[in-house]
């Protein structure tokens, strides 16, 4: 009797797992946080029974998780270099890779009590004590920033003022809280905190910001992952991405 009761309990515990057999894990660049959270819900609505689990971090951090065997189905990076490494390490299926959105890099300042900045040169002024940038090793926005500042010949001069952040969203947070005087984020990030940060200028001189997406090699739900990639190309999904400020490649 008791044994059968345990059996029932086991079955009851296992049931939800069976019902939601398809759980799609999407590792996406931090800048996609808001757009993918909304898109994840839309995808779940039109694909009953399936759930989308979202994992946001700096693209480099996501790559590292993937290479250490994290159970990921879809990987979306904020730059080509990180995806190139994922392809060359055979972590993602190169055949499924394609660019799905574009973005641009902007310099932001806190909305209140910020120094007046209209050119990159203004960052060298004494009023700017600290500039937040993404960590070069893991955050694509940090590397775009380096390219832009190197092109302007300011990287070395400004380096002592840098505060390195774990993701582009941490840069945004530092600026929004006024702990730094300026920071480099994507235009879409600045739009999320419209009331707290102000866009001073759009950076130039870096490689174009385009986001590649691909299905992970070890994915156990490749068909569903493929459907998620297709879904991102539908008019409904494009509309959401556009609303958050992402461009079409």
């Amino acid at each position: 009797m008791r044994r059968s009761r345990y059996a029932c309990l086991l079955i009851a515990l296992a049931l939800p797992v069976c019902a939601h057999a398809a759980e799609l894990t999407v590792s996406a660049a931090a800048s996609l946080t808001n757009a993918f959270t909304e898109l994840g819900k839309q995808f779940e609505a039109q694909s009953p029974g399936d759930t989308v689990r979202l994992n946001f971090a700096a693209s480099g951090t996501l790559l590292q998780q993937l290479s250490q065997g994290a159970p990921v189905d879809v990987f979306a990076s904020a730059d080509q270099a990180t995806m190139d490494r994922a392809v060359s390490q055979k972590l993602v299926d190169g055949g499924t890779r394609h660019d799905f959105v574009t973005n641009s890099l902007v310099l932001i300042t806190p909305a209140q009590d910020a120094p007046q900045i209209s050119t990159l040169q203004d960052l060298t002024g004494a009023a700017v004590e600290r500039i937040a940038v993404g960590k070069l090793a893991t955050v694509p926005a940090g590397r775009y920033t380096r390219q832009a500042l190197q092109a302007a010949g300011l990287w070395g001069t400004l380096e002592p003022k840098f505060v390195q952040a774990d993701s582009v969203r941490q840069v945004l947070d530092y600026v929004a809280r006024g702990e730094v005087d300026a920071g480099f984020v994507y235009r879409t990030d600045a739009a999320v905190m419209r009331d707290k940060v102000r866009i001073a200028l759009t950076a130039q001189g870096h490689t174009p910001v385009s986001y590649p997406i691909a299905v992970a090699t070890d994915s156990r739900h490749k068909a569903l992952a493929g459907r998620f990639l297709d879904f991102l190309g539908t008019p409904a999904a494009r509309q959401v991405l556009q609303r958050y400020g992402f461009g079409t490649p």
Partner: protein
Amino acid sequence: MTNLLPAGFDWFPVVLSLKVAALATVLALAAGVALGWLFARKPFPGSSILESFCMLPLVLPPTVIGYAILVAAGRRSPLGAWLREHFDYTLIFNWHGAVVASAVVALPLVLKSASAAFSNIDRTLEAAASTLRQSRWSVFVRVTLPLAWPGILAGTLLAFARAMGEFGASLMVAGSIPHRTQTLSMSIYDAVQAGQDDLALVLVLITSVLSVSILAVSNRYLSLR
């Protein structure tokens, strides 16, 4: 030995960690002994509530401590704005911030041990010292403190160990700025994130060896028995 280190190995985080942990321990020791004595010997209305409050850093996640310090001393807080205006000083993204964060997190360890040590002292010994025309300060330094020392030392060693391993609160307050605020624990985190496992392993070995030897040596020479 030098062959084991990766080329261009940077000792800065090691030195900074030792500096931060040492200063934080001194701060926690001073505040912990003072508060421990107060709670054990001079209870006042609400002192037990205040003592529980001082134990909070042990219970709360370090991120909460980090957030609290950010809110209390950030640029937009009254204290942060005042410091900036009058002294052109900011605690945030400064290694002093890591010292404060580590000291706050380590404080309960000294406080609890000191408070227990002071409570357990035979009060008649102090009374005897008082009859020998010793001032109250002199009784404290020559009788009370030596008697309570083993307990205080145990707490202090725990505090140092905790400060050496501090990560969450310090990261939030001081950031991880190479060559300015990046401690050992932060450089290990960065190395792992960037996929530099060899560097991470070396740093882990260094921090383990350093912490164990410092604790062993101080335990040997600072205990008065």
